């Protein structure tokens, strides 16, 4: 076995990142550096109203007073924020009526990503808002969505067309001061997606955004805001890949979700950004703040994430359970291989009565990677009858990787109920042998076992995403045998 294992490990570590390429888009990029002028430049470029510029500047001043957080179990050299460029946009900012007018290089990008803006997606019923290097390029299905009164557009467009909604909710879930990266994002965010689902509307299709970091040396700072009005439903998909580069790239997004009375938001992510090479050179630094606010009674916010990429992942999609009877869910698969580091988890903050939350986290570590689950379940004095169930499982492939669990529980109401289960296991030799004996090679056997291990989470994903996620798991773990 050991000899075979070495070979497999060799194979995986020499595997090339599938999405490793960059496209020569004709881009307009701002010189590196971050000052008030940078913030003003971005705001002016986007023709923003003065209240938004003021908001950005406030965030920038706030950010200057803050220190980068280092409580995560993550190790990386200091990030020089002055050496990054904070704005990059494809030069041909298009006003397009058909795909024929789209920059052919951009179409190539989409094709390599496996996204087609054409009939395929139409048949699949997916509306795509693609974000390349910060500026939203093309949004499809707007008309169909508009019939239902659904607003799905780039963040910049929302600022122009729906300023009242943006003003009312921007920063309401993730305040400027929330954390270092959120403050940075608030100051310099480039673009992102905006969704509004009117009362009583079930969004007729899955909404999907593919993010991609393309230009060299650009930090990418998306801002996403989703508002689901009373009795509405929306499922939102986010997929990410980035080109392979030797230097690390920073990504610090903020996602805010607001669910009003009885609204249901389902937010799914499959993240496959370049993880760096086997020695940890290159790769995306992913410092993301995602939070939902169950503002209305009996509302539901559900996060599902499959994280296989990035060199560093710092991410805690959370839910504030304000409305009585509201529910928060977090389903997560985080895979780390080679030198990847992930510190991820969730916060469920129970404020309303009879609120409930479910946390299912599956961490899989291979190679020399480190994978941590960090979670907080908090029940405030007002949260009478609150319930939480948490299940955090870690699977180790090999003996040079690490799995860690940091669950915090704070219950300030005697009626609160918290159930927490945690397991750490190694992939069992006898399971692999059983599958081998049926003709399945070890590499495939590991993929099958890991897929089974994550099934509870993968089952939460919409169909086409689940297929992609399964493939990704298989690729990221090729040859990582315990």
């Amino acid at each position, binding site marked *: 076995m050991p000899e075979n294992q070495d070979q497999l490990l060799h194979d995986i570590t020499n595997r090339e990142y599938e999405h490793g390429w960059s496209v020569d888009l004709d881009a307009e990029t701002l010189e590196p550096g971050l000052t008030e002028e940078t913030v003003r430049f971005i705001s002016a470029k986007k023709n923003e109203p003065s209240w938004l510029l003021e908001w950005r500047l406030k965030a920038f001043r706030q950010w200057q007073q803050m220190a980068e957080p280092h409580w995560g179990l993550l190790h990386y050299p200091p990030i020089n924020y002055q050496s990054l460029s904070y704005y990059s946009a494809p030069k041909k900012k298009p006003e397009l009526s058909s795909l024929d007018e789209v920059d052919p290089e951009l179409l190539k990008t989409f094709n390599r990503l496996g996204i087609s803006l054409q009939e395929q997606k139409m048949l699949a019923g997916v509306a795509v808002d693609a974000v390349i290097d910060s500026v939203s390029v093309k949004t499809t299905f707007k008309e169909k969505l508009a019939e239902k009164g659904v607003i799905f557009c780039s963040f910049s467009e929302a600022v122009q067309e729906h300023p009242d909604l943006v003003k009312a909710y921007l920063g309401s879930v993730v305040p400027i001061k929330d954390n270092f990266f959120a403050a940075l994002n608030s100051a310099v965010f480039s673009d992102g997606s905006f969704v509004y689902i009117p009362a009583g509307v079930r969004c007729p299709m899955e909404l999907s955004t593919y993010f991609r970091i393309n230009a060299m040396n650009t930090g990418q700072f998306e801002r996403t805001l989703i508002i689901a009005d009373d009795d509405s439903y929306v499922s939102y998909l986010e997929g990410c890949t980035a080109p392979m580069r030797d230097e690390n790239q920073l990504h610090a997004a903020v996602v805010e979700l607001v669910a009003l009375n009885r609204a249901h938001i389902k937010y799914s992510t499959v993240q496959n950004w370049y993880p760096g090479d086997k020695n940890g050179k290159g790769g995306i630094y992913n410092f993301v703040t995602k939070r939902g606010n169950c503002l209305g009674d009996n509302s539901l916010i559900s996060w599902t994430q499959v994280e296989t990429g990035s060199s560093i992942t710092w991410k805690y999609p959370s839910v504030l359970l304000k409305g009585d009877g509201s529910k928060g869910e977090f389903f997560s698969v985080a895979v780390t291989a080679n030198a990847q580091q992930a510190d991820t988890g969730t916060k469920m903050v129970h404020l309303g009565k009879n609120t409930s939350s479910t946390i299912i986290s599956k961490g899989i570590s291979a190679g020399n990677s480190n994978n941590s689950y960090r979670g907080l379940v908090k029940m405030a004095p007002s949260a009478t009858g609150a319930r939480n169930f948490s299940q955090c499982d870690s699977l180790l492939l090999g003996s040079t990787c690490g799995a860690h669990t940091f669950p915090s529980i704070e219950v300030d109401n005697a009626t609160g109920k918290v159930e927490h289960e945690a397991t750490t296991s190694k992939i069992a030799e006898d399971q692999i*042998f059983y*599958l081998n*004996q*049926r*003709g*399945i090679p070890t590499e*495939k056997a590991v993929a099958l076992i890991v897929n*089974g*291990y994550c*099934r509870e989470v993968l089952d939460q994903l919409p169909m086409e995403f689940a297929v992609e996620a399964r493939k990704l798991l298989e690729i990221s773990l090729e040859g990582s045998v315990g």
Partner: protein
Amino acid sequence: MYMLEIRNLHASIDGKPILKGLNLSVKAGEVHAIMGPNGSGKSTLASIIAGNEAYEITEGDVLFQGISLLDLQPHERAAAGVFLAFQYPVEIPGVSMMNFMKSAINEIRAQKGQEPIEASAFLKLVREKQALVELDAKLANRSVNQGFSGGEKKRNEVFQMAMLDPKLAVLDETDSGLDIDALRIVAQGVNALRNSQNSFLVITHYQRLLDYIVPDVVHVLANGKIIKTGSKDLALELEAKGYDWILETDQA
């Protein structure tokens, strides 16, 4: 040429010798039963045939249709036609029986340079083999062996054997834990697959199974070797007298 030919096999685990010069030859079309006291090395033998790398082969060879199995990885042996019905089938949470069987068939086909099986052909095969071992169709939708009763696990092993149609099947105590009806059904399954081109090595403690699966040859494995070989009457004799009498003659 033998289907299976084991020559002077010595094997140990963690430095502890278990098999000490075992010889065994099985022709195509034959069913051989292996009996022997607990801990004598029967499952060890089965594991070595299947390629479990926990065991160290210190001497001897295991030939399958004239080629040494020792050079092949476990999945390659499976593709060549070696099947093991495990004494303790393993649970694989979250992996459905259907997904598992489809992967097994397609991986074996891939190793032989064949295209993946068509969905309809696969479903037809599943239905046919399920009926053969009277396996509850509901089990097919469950995770591999998870929450299966002891008897269901054994029946599931025979189902998998029927699906993969091996040349050499080693059944390690597939009868233990089965009620009388299940025993009959499992035996029926084996008998239905039996033909002049394949062979079975049936490890059991009970002569009862051999009433249903009638063996051509019965061996006794003890002290790491085959110490006695006979016809099916040997099983009856063992049932009546136990092992002590052979062990004594063996030592003498």
